[in-house]
C-alpha cells in the first residue's frame, strides 16, 4: 500500500488523465475490475473506463485543474477539484444525449472519492453538478 501522498497523487493523476481522455495510465492507476460512477458514466472494469475516457477525450481543451485533498486515510482517498476548460468537443451527458462543442469557457467543481486495493484504485465515485455544467454551456441538448 502506498503512502497517503501517493494515494492522493494517484487520484489526481486519474482525474487529470480523465479530463484529457488519456487512457494510457489506466493499467497503472486502476485495478482491472475497477468500478466507478459519475453523473455521465458508470463503469465496472478498467477496459470500460478506458473506452469512456477515450470517448470523451476531445470534449475539453485549455484545461486547468486544481486539487484539494480532503481526506486520505486507510484504503480511501477523497479529493476536491476545480476544472476550468473550453468546451471544444461533444459531451455525452446521457446515453444518447450529446451536446456539440460551444467554445464556451466553463468551470466545474467536484469531489472524487476513491478506494484502493494495494496501490491501485479499485472503486471511485465522482460528484459534480450536471446542472451547473448545462447552465454554463447554455445550449439546448440535441439528440
Amino acid at each position: 500500500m502506498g503512502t497517503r501522498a501517493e494515494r492522493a497523487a494517484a487520484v489526481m493523476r486519474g482525474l487529470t488523465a480523465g479530463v484529457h481522455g488519456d487512457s494510457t495510465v489506466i493499467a497503472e492507476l486502476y485495478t482491472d475490475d475497477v468500478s466507478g460512477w459519475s453523473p455521465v458514466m458508470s463503469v465496472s472494469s478498467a477496459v470500460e473506463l478506458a473506452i469512456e475516457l477515450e470517448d470523451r477525450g476531445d470534449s475539453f481543451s485549455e484545461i486547468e485543474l486544481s486539487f484539494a485533498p480532503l481526506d486520505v486515510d486507510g484504503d480511501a482517498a477523497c479529493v476536491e477539484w476545480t476544472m476550468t476548460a473550453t468546451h471544444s468537443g461533444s459531451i455525452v451527458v446521457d446515453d444518447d444525449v450529446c451536446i456539440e462543442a460551444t467554445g464556451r469557457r466553463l468551470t466545474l467543481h467536484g469531489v472524487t472519492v476513491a478506494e484502493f486495493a494495494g496501490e491501485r484504485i479499485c472503486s471511485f465515485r465522482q460528484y459534480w453538478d450536471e446542472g451547473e455544467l448545462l447552465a454554463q454551456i447554455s445550449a439546448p441538448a440535441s439528440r
Partner: protein
Amino acid sequence: MVGVVREGEERVVTRAGQARRPPLAGARDLARVLAQVDPPLGPPQFGDEVVERAALRDRLGASGGRVALVVAPAGYGKTTLLAQWAAVDSRPTAWVSLRESDNDAPALLSHLLFALEESTALGAEHYEAIALSVADLARVVLPRFGAVVADAAPTLWMLDDVHLLRSDAALRVLRVLLDHVSTGSTVVLAGRRAPDLPIARWRASRTVLDIGLDDLTMSEREAAALLRATGATLRPGEVGTVVARTEGWPAGIYLSSLAHRDGGDVARIGSDERAVAEYLLDEVLRVTTDDQATFLTRSAIFELVIPSACDAVLERDDAAALLDALERSNLFVHRVGVQDAYRYHQLFRDLLLAELRRRESTTEQELHRRASGWFESQGDIERAIEHAHASGERDRVADLVWAHLAYYIGIGRTATVQRWLDAFPANDIAARPSLALAAAWVAFTDGDSTDMERWAAVLHTHDLDGALSEGISRRGAVALVDALVSKDGLRQSLADAELAYAEHQPGTPYQPLASLIAGIASRLLGDTERSKVWCAEALQLGVVLPPLLAQASAQMARLAADAGMWADAMRHTDVALEVVEQYGFEERAAMCQVYAIAGYVRAHEGRSDAKDLVKHGVWLVASLRGVARFVALDARILLARALATFGELDLARELVNEAGELIAAYPDAGVLPEMLADTQARVAAAERPLGMSASPLTPAELRVLRYLPTHLSFAEIAEVIFVSRNTVKTQAIAVYRKLGVTSRGAAVDRARAAGLLDP
C-alpha cells in the same frame, strides 16, 4: 464500376459492384440442355387395344401411401397401369420415362424438374437454383431440389423404367425426391427390378404399396377383355388355353390375339421372351409391308424415334406418316410427349435390331454414323457421341469428346465425359491424344493428381507436332496440362503456360486458362507487373467462361490487395463470388483460391462473411494437393493467414504444416517459401501475446479494430461504418478485453503484433 466484360460492351455491374444476374431464361435453357429433354414427355398414349385394369388402378389410388412400387418383367403392363392411374387421379401427374442418361445426376434432376413443371407452375428461380448449380450436388442442388419437391402441390409422380437408374448420384437424387415429397403426393416407381433404395425399411413402416408379378398377371376375365379389344373372337375354352399358355402374361396374350386375328395358331405363343421373339419375327414383321419392316428395323437404332431424324438418317421423307400408321396398328410403337416422337417397346426394339443385323449386316453401322452426324448438326452432342460409339467410329468419338470437352467440364458434367471415356479401353485412350487429354482434364477436375500426372506422361509419348483440332496445337494442349501438373516447379509452369497461350488461337477455351496460370505463376515468382498483364488478359478472355471469370477476378483482387488497394480488391471479390454462386461452383476444389482471396480481403475490410468464406476455402483446399500444386500452396498460405486474424490458430497451424510438406516436395517454389515463413510468423505472433483472450475477434470487432489506428473518434468511426456510437464502444470494449489491453494505442500495438492489423 468494375470492368468484367470487354471494353465497349455493356458492363453488367451495379453501382455497389455486385454483378447482376443474367436473364433467368437462360437457366431454363441450360436445364433443358443438361437434361437432354426434348419437349416434355408425358405418359405414352395408347389406342383402344388395352384393358382397363380398374381393380389394380383403384387399389393403387386407394392406398394413400407415399410410395408405390410396381415391379415385373417386360410385357406385364406396368406402363399401361401407370398411365391408367394417371388418367383418373385428380392430382397433377409428373411423368418421367427414365433413360440410361438419367444416371447423370444433373440430367435426372432437370428431367424431374421438367416433369414437375408439367403439373406445377415453377418460377424461373427454381431453374436458376437447381439447373445452374449442377456442380454442387450435395450441398446446394439436392437441398434446393428437396425444397422444390416439398413445396409442390400434391402430385402423382410416375417414374417409369426405374431399373435403369444404377449410379450412386442418380439414386441419391431419387432418395431426395422420396424423402421430401410433399404431403398428399405419391411416388410410383415402376421397372423390371426394384431400385437400390431402402425399400425394406419402407415396407416395415408400411409406407410402400407393392404391385408385383402376381398382381399384374391377367385373369381369364381380363384376358378375354384384351382379346375382345384386339378384335379376336376365340371359341369357348380358347381363352383359358391362351391364359394357361402365357401364364397370364399380358404381352403374350396380346400377341396371341394378333396371331389369331392373322389366322395363326394361338398355341404357338409361349410365356417367355424367346417365344415372343419367334412370334415377332415370323408373324408381326410378316404382316407389315416390306417398306414398313425395313423402316422399323432401321429406325430401331433410335432410342427416341423422331420423324425428322428418321427422314434424315434413313434417307426418306415419310417417317411421320409411317410412324403414325404403325402406332395405330401396333402395341409396340408408342407416341410419347406432345411432339411427334415415338418409342418402341424395349423388347420389340431389341428384336428389330437383331433382325436388322440379320437382314442387313453392314447397315447398322452406317445408320449410326449418319445419325451421329445428324444429331451433331442439331447440337445434340450426347446423342451424336452415342451413335458414333455405336457405329464403331472411335476416332470420331474422340474428336467429338475433345471438341466439346471444355463445355461439359465447364458445366460440371464430368461424369458424362467419364462415361464417354469408359467406353474405351485404357490403351485406346492412351493411343489417342485427344482422349488422353480429356482423361487428364477429368482427373484435374476430380482433384486426382496421380491420374493427371499419369495421363500427362502418356501425352508426352505422342508426337506433339501438328494440330489437335482447329486452333489448338497438340504441343499447346499438352503444355497446358504440364503447366497445371507443375512437376518441375513454377518457372517451368510459367513457360508451359506461355507456350500454351501462344499455341492456342484466340477464341479457344484454353487460351484464357493459359493466361490465368501464367498470371498466378508470375505473381508467385515475384513478378507482379507480369502477373497483372496476364491476369488482365485472363479476365478479358475469360468473361464468357464463368469458371475463368471467377478465378481471374479473384487473382485481380489478390493483386489489388497486395498493392494496398482494398476497395478495388473488394470489387473484384464481389464479382468472383457472384459468379461462383450463380453458376454453382461452390464445391469445385479449384475454387478454393476464390474463397481464400475473398475471405482474406473481406476480413481486412471487416466484412461479416469473411470467416465463412475462409472456412469454405479450407474445406475445398483439402481436396487439392498434388493437382495444380502452386494453387494448392498459395491458397493454403493465404487461408492460414486469414485464419490467424480470426484467432483460429489450430486450423491455421494445420494449413501451414500442410503447406510446408507440399513446399518440401516442390522443386522451384518462387516466393512461396517466403510467403509461408511470413504466415508462420503471423500465426506464431498471434499465439504469443500474454493476456490475450483465447476467443477470436468477431468480424464486427475486427471492423472496429481496423479503425483504431486512425485519428477517428468512436463517434466518427460509428458514422463511417453505419452503426451507433454505443455499438462501436461495446465492440471496442470487447476488442480491448480480448487483446488484454486498456488503451487504444496498446490495442493497436497488440493487434499488429498478432497479425490482426497490417504493420
